[in-house]
C-alpha cells in the first residue's frame, strides 16, 4: 500500500507546469500573440540543433517529472493502531529504478565490475583465509564463471537491448513520422513535420542508449558504485531533478521581481526609477556567492531551529532546496531588470504607448497590454540562457557548502563526494565522470537550445544572418 504525498517543490512544479500550459493556451487563443510566438517556435523546432536539443531536454524533464511524483510506503499493520507510514519518501522514478536502488554493494566498484574495489579477507577454497577482491553481491552475480562468461553475456545483453531500442525507434518513426519522410520539410507550416525529420538521428541515438541501459543496468553497475555502494547511474538519474528544479524554480521566483521592478523603473521614471535603481545597484554590489552564502547560512540556522516542522528528511532537504531557489531568485533578478528597464525606457516613447495614454488608458493596462508583450522576447531569452548557468552554479555552491542539503542527491554533492577519490590508487573516476557527463549533456543541450531561441526571437541577431 502506498500513499501519495506532495512535497512543497512538487506543488511548485505543478504551478510551473500549469503556468506554462496557461501561457501556451493564451498564445493559442490570442491571435496576434500566436503569430508572433508561433513563428519563432517553428523556426527553433525546424532547425536540426533546436529540435535535437529540445528532445534531449524533454528526456531530462521527463525523468525529472517522474522523480517528482512522491509517495510513502505503508508499514505492516500492527493490530489496534491506525495505519503507519514509513519515513522514507520514494518517487515514481525510484519505483522504476527499484533494482538499481536496491542493488547496494559494500563500497566502490568500477563500471561493469564483478568484484569489489577493496580487498577483503575471504574463506579460501581449501579452507584458510585469503586476501582477495570479493565478488559483488549484485553486479554480475548471475555469472557462474566470470572469466569465461563476462564478455559473451555483456555483448548478448547489450546487443539485444540495442536491437530492442532500434525496433522501438523504428516503430515510433513509422507511426509518427510517416508524413515527413521526405527530406525537405513542407514550406510555411504544415505541423512540425520538419522537426520530426530532424529528430530522427537523435531519437535513434536515445533509443539505442535507453535499450542498452535497460538491458545492462539491472545486472551490472554500468557506472560503478560509490563509496557506500550505491549505483552511480541511479544517483545520476536522481540528480537530474535537483538540477532542473534549481534552473526552473529560481526563474519562477526571479521573474516577478525582474518584470515588475524593471518595467516600472523604465516606464514611470523619476522617483520610482531612482529607488529601483538604488535597489539593484545595492544588491549587485554585494559579491554574488557571498550574498547567497549569507542567506543560505541564515536559512540553515532557521531550519535547524524549527526542525519539528519537517517530519521526514526529504521534507527538510526539500525546504532547503526551495530556500536556495528563493535566494538565487531574489539575488538574481538584477540583470534582467536592468535589461527590461532599458527596453521600457525606449518603448514608452513610441507612438503606440503615447496613443494609449492619449486615449486615457490606465497605467496598469498600458503596462500589461502594451509593454509586457513587447518585452516578452527578452524575458524568454534570458530565462533560457540563465537555466544552464544555474545548473552549473548548483555544483559550485554545493562545494562551497551553501548548496542543497548534503543529504540530497545532486550533481554538486556527487562531485563533492568524489573529488578526493582521485587521489586513490587505482583512481576512482567513475562517480565524477558520470556526474560531469550527465551535467554536461544537460547544460550543452540547454545552451544550444538557448542559442536557437535567441536567434529566433531576437530581431537583432536574426537580422544579422
Amino acid at each position: 500500500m502506498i500513499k501519495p504525498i506532495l512535497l512543497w517543490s512538487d506543488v511548485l512544479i505543478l504551478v510551473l507546469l500549469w503556468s506554462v500550459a496557461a501561457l501556451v493556451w493564451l498564445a493559442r487563443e490570442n491571435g496576434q500573440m500566436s503569430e508572433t510566438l508561433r513563428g519563432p517556435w517553428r523556426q527553433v523546432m525546424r532547425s536540426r540543433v533546436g529540435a535535437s536539443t529540445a528532445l534531449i531536454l524533454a528526456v531530462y524533464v521527463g525523468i525529472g517529472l517522474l522523480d517528482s511524483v512522491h509517495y510513502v510506503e505503508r508499514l505492516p499493520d500492527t493490530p489496534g493502531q491506525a495505519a503507519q507510514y514509513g519515513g522514507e519518501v520514494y518517487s515514481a522514478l525510484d519505483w522504476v529504478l527499484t533494482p538499481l536502488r536496491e542493488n547496494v554493494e559494500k563500497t566502490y566498484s568500477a563500471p561493469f565490475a564483478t568484484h569489489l574495489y577493496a580487498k577483503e579477507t575471504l574463506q579460501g577454497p581449501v579452507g584458510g583465509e585469503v586476501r582477495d577482491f570479493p565478488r559483488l553481491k549484485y553486479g554480475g552475480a548471475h555469472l557462474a564463471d566470470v572469466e569465461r562468461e563476462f564478455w559473451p553475456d555483456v555483448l548478448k545483453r547489450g546487443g539485444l537491448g540495442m536491437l530492442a531500442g532500434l525496433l522501438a525507434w523504428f516503430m515510433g518513426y513509422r507511426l509518427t513520422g510517416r508524413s515527413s519522410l521526405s527530406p525537405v520539410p513542407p514550406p510555411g507550416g504544415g505541423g512540425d513535420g520538419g522537426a520530426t525529420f530532424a529528430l530522427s538521428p537523435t531519437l535513434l541515438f536515445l533509443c539505442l542508449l535507453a535499450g542498452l541501459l535497460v538491458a545492462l543496468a539491472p545486472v551490472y553497475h554500468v557506472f560503478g558504485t560509490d563509496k557506500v555502494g550505491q549505483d552511480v547511474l541511479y544517483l545520476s538519474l536522481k540528480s537530474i531533478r535537483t538540477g532542473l528544479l534549481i534552473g526552473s524554480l529560481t526563474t519562477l521566483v526571479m521573474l516577478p521581481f525582474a518584470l515588475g521592478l524593471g518595467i516600472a523603473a523604465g516606464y514611470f521614471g523619476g522617483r520610482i526609477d531612482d529607488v529601483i535603481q538604488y535597489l539593484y545597484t545595492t544588491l549587485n554590489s554585494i559579491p554574488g556567492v557571498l550574498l547567497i552564502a549569507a542567506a543560505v547560512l541564515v536559512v540553515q540556522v532557521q531550519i535547524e531551529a524549527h526542525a519539528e516542522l519537517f517530519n521526514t528528511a526529504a521534507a527538510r532537504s526539500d525546504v532547503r532546496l526551495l530556500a536556495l531557489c528563493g535566494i538565487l531568485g531574489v539575488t538574481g533578478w538584477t540583470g534582467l531588470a536592468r535589461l527590461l528597464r532599458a527596453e521600457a525606457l525606449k518603448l514608452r516613447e513610441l507612438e503606440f504607448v503615447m496613443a494609449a495614454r492619449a486615449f486615457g488608458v490606465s497605467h496598469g493596462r498600458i503596462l500589461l497590454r502594451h509593454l509586457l508583450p513587447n518585452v516578452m522576447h527578452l524575458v524568454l531569452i534570458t530565462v533560457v540562457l540563465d537555466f544552464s548557468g544555474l545548473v552549473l552554479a548548483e555544483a559550485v555552491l554545493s562545494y562551497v557548502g551553501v548548496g542543497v542539503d548534503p543529504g540530497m542527491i545532486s550533481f554538486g554533492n556527487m562531485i563533492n563526494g568524489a573529488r578526493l577519490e582521485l587521489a586513490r590508487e587505482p583512481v576512482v573516476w567513475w562517480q565524477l565522470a558520470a556526474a560531469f557527463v550527465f551535467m554536461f549533456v544537460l547544460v550543452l543541450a540547454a545552451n544550444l537550445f538557448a542559442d536557437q531561441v535567441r536567434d529566433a526571437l531576437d530581431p537583432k541577431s536574426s537580422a544579422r544572418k
Partner: protein
Amino acid sequence: MLDYLIRRVLYAIPILLGVNLLTFALFFMVNTPDDMARIHLGAKHVTAEAITRWKSEHGYDRPLFFNEQAAGVAKAADTLFVEKSLKLFALDFGAADDGRDIAREIKTRMWPSLAIALPTFLIGLLAYISFALLLVFFRGTRLDTAGVVLCVALMSISGLFYVIGGQYLMGKLWHWFPISGYQPGLDAWKFLLMPVLVSVVASIGDSARFYRALFFEEIAKDYVRTARAKGLSELRVLFRHVLGNAMIPILTGVVVVIPRLFMGSLIIESFFGIPGLGSYTIDAIQAQDFAIVRSMVFLGSLLYILGLVLTDLSYTLVDPRVRLE
C-alpha cells in the same frame, strides 16, 4: 572631474549603508546573536549562562538599534548596529568570532590572492580577446563555426571539472606542478602557474564568445566599411578600428572587476590551498563565522563601487568624447 568624483563618493554612501542594513538584518535580526552563540557553543554546552557569556565575550550583548540603559549619545552609539555594522565604514572590521583580528588577516592574505587573480585577469583578457579576434577574422568559415562550437562546449563544462581535471593531469599524472599549497616569495610561481592556467581555461568559452559577439556588432557598423573602402587590410581594420572602438564595451565589463581582484577566487584558492582572501572567506562560511562574512560582504561592495568609478574614469581615457561633469 573633481565634482564628479565627489558626487560619486556621496552616491556610494547610501549604497554601502543599504548593504550594511541588509547584512545586519540577515545576521542580527533574522538570526539573533543567541542563535549564533548556540552554533558556536555546540549542542552540548547550551545553557542560558553560557550563551550570555559567549555574547559578552564577543561583544554581542548590546541592543540592536537603541540602548535604553546608556546616557546621551551612547543611547544610539552603544548598540550592535553601530558597533558591528557602522564601524565597517571606518574599515574597522573588528575581531572574528574566533578572536583573530580581521583587518590583519585581510592585509596578509590579499597578496597571495592578488598573485593569482592579477595574472589570471591579464592573461585571460589577452587570451580571450585574441581568440575572439581570430574567430572574427575567419568569420563565415569552417574555422569560425568550429571555434564557436568549441566555445559552447567549453562553457557547458562545470568549472569544477577544470579544477579537478587540471589538478589530476598536471599535478598527479604529469607531475608538472605541486597539486596544492603556497609559498611566499620568489618560489611562489611553482604554485601559482597551475591555478592561473586552470582559471584562464575555465572561462575561455564564455568570454571568447562574449567578445566575439561584441566584435561582430562593431564590424557591422559603417565606419568599418569606410575603412575597408580606403583599402586598409583586414588585419589593420580589425586591430586599429574595430578593437579601438570596441574598447568602450570591453572596458565596461572589465574595469569594474579590477578592484575585486584583491578578494581572490573562492573555488580556485580553496582547491589549490592558496592562503588568500578567497579561501579565508570560504573557511568562514564553512565555520559559520558571521563576523568575517559580514566584513567580506562590505569589502566586496566597497571594491565594486570603486570599480564603477574607475570604469567611468577609464572611458575618458579611451574615448575623447566622454567628459565627466
